[in-house]
């Protein structure tokens, strides 16, 4: 393993965007862009993860993030091993730290962790010698999602500085929202959030964002709208009275888009609850870049894996 000082990021692990510096984010985005250009020119991808093993340890159901990391590692020539809660010994009472130490004893090169408790990736990073990439910890952070959002924004808007971005939905319970806010702020974007007061985090304005409760008041001069997935099954009572009411006040439909700038981009981390967060015509419309986010996700994750443990990167 390379000492962290020797990798181009100067980071052992990628745990969140809150403490990523501007030049570190730029390094990741540059690397991703360069990989994308090569792939678009059909040039072969350098196998910088040859002989490297990436463990995907997922304690929550996930389709796209896990698939995206797995593809990313394999396209770089790496080996992946999938471990879920059911396949690890967590079901037998083994603690997270013990599970991770056991895995580390098998000498992998990097661990990707998805976990329902905030801080889990941080705790493992403190206990393990290998790099850890946080693929989502509770409500806390999901840094690779935010970075792929930035990559997509840069691609379509050519800049991040001064860009006006509105995040809509359940901000309080969203790791995507936190990571997006930190990363966008660091890169100079102006960020607003909008959602029902029950789903906004306490003191959201102290995160340096403008806070709205009325969607129609929030959208007019935004360059980008990021709609978040509403997870009704997790919310419990007392957050939103009904799906219908959420969709009425916070759903993004074509009428609302009529109030937006003509060149507004619509993004969503997926999976979309059609008709709830986004109406079908918006989700599939010309302003939606949701599938571009997914494609970029693989490339962005390739960039991160390569920067952390890749062979030829200096």
């Amino acid at each position, binding site marked *: 393993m390379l000492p962290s000082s020797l990798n181009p990021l100067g980071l052992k692990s990628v745990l969140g965007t*809150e403490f990523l510096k501007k030049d570190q984010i730029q390094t990741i985005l540059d690397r991703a862009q360069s990989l994308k250009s090569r792939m678009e020119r059909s040039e072969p991808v350098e196998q910088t993860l040859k002989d490297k093993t990436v463990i995907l340890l997922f304690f929550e159901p996930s389709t796209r993030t896990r698939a995206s990391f797995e593809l990313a590692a394999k396209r770089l020539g790496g080996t992946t091993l999938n471990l879920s809660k059911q396949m690890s010994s967590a079901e037998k009472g083994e*603690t*997270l*730290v013990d599970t991770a130490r056991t895995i580390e004893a098998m000498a992998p090169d990097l661990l990707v962790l998805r*976990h*329902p*408790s*905030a*801080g*889990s990736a*941080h*705790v493992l990073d*403190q206990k393990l010698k290998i790099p850890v990439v946080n693929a989502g*910890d*509770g*409500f*806390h*952070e999901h840094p690779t999602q935010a970075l792929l959002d930035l990559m997509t924004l840069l691609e379509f808007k050519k800049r991040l500085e001064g860009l006006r971005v509105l995040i809509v939905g359940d901000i*309080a319970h969203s*790791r995507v929202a*936190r990571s997006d806010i930190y990363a966008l702020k660091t890169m100079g974007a102006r960020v607003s959030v909008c959602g029902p007061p029950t789903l906004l*985090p*306490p*003191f*959201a304005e*102290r*995160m340096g964002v403008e806070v709205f409760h009325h969607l129609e008041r929030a959208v007019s001069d935004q360059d980008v709208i990021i709609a978040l997935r509403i997870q009704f099954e997790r919310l419990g009572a007392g957050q939103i009275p009904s799906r219908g009411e959420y969709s009425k006040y916070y759903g993004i439909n074509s009428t609302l888009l009529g109030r937006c700038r003509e060149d507004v981009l619509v993004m969503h981390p997926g999976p979309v609850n059609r008709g709830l967060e986004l109406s079908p015509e918006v989700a599939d419309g010309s302003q939606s870049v949701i599938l571009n986010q997914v494609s970029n996700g693989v490339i962005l994750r390739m960039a991160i894996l390569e920067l952390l443990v890749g062979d030829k990167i200096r």
Partner: protein
Amino acid sequence: MSLWIRNGRIIDPSQKRDIVGDVFVQSGKIEAIGPNIVVPQVPGLNTIDAKGCWVTPGWIDMHTHLREPGGTHKETIRTGSESAAAGGFTSIACMANTQPVNDNSYVTSYIYQKVSSEALINVYAIGAVTKGLQGEELAEIGSMFDAGIVGLSDDGKTLMNAYLLRKAMDYSKRFDLVIISHAEDSSLKGKGVMNEGFNSARFGLRGIPRTAEDIIVARDILVAEHTNSRLHIAHASTVGSVALIREAKRRGIQVTAEVTPHHLTLTDDAVIHYDTNTKVAPPLREKRDVDALREALSDGTIDTLASDHAPHSIEDKEVEYDLAEFGMIGMETAFPLYHKLVVEGLLSINRMIEAMTIRPATILGISKGTLKVGADADITIADPSVRYTIDKQVFRSKSRNSPFDGWEVQGRVMHTIVGGKVVYDAKAGGIQ
């Protein structure tokens, strides 16, 4: 056996005394105290030179968890009493949330049997308010009183049924037992694991709002007023609690309160690295709460200092923040943390000692906390000038769950004396 403590700064708030002088102990009692006492030449006289040290009534920690019976892998009455002695405490009260719960006289008697055979210091039992801490039926308060409990509490849980609280307050007046309230509304607390605020939003952890505490403090004060009975608020942690307690005292309601070392010295900033040793109930709050608690301790709105010593094993703490148990140990770090406020000029020495001696003794109704002639010779000697680094590896407690490991502090316990017997001597290998 006789003991002559010489040339110490004797601080005894029970007698409003703060002088340099000697204490003479004979047959386990304070025999003489003053600047120029005459000590008889008795055989076997043990002398302690206390020059530069404080000589105070033995300290009292009215809020601890000793985990026996049922949780002896975390702490026992023996190890808890050693931890107390090393922390300078000569008397402690242990909470009822053991397994089985101390909700009947058999458990109370078991605890006192263990105490008499194994404890190095005085240990008093607190009885449960409700059976099994379930908040549904009153525990056998009278039988436990006869077996020796000194207070009532469902600590660890909040009695959410106001009717039952009212009945408990009415009933316990018969025994003049104080009801100690752990004030956290369970519906507002929900699955919260830290203070609700900007930091909980940042760290992605579920918050526990201040209102969860304030609403129960307000309710309990109103019920205490209605029943004209005694209420003690455990581990006050919010600016709102302080205001409610201050107002209640002004109106003559019989309410007292305590504050812990951690709520006086830490904010929820400490949670940033997800160190589960910072997970505690009520949670670490924010600077304005800490400031309010310090002021309230200084002006007497908050009566006592108490550690809420809550031992947990590694397997309870080396887990995800959401899953970790609430609580931290505190008896061996309490004094230097309290003393930090004195060093910073926020608290007078006399007020600090009062909050560690005569105030908790009065609230629990135990004849301790004083150096009056004839009193039990429970004495703590501390050197306020010694600086050192807290090292969890040297704790006498069976557990290590402290967020203060590595802190640079000032003020060290030199001798802990219980009934005239030295049970802890820092210079002679610690526990005696």
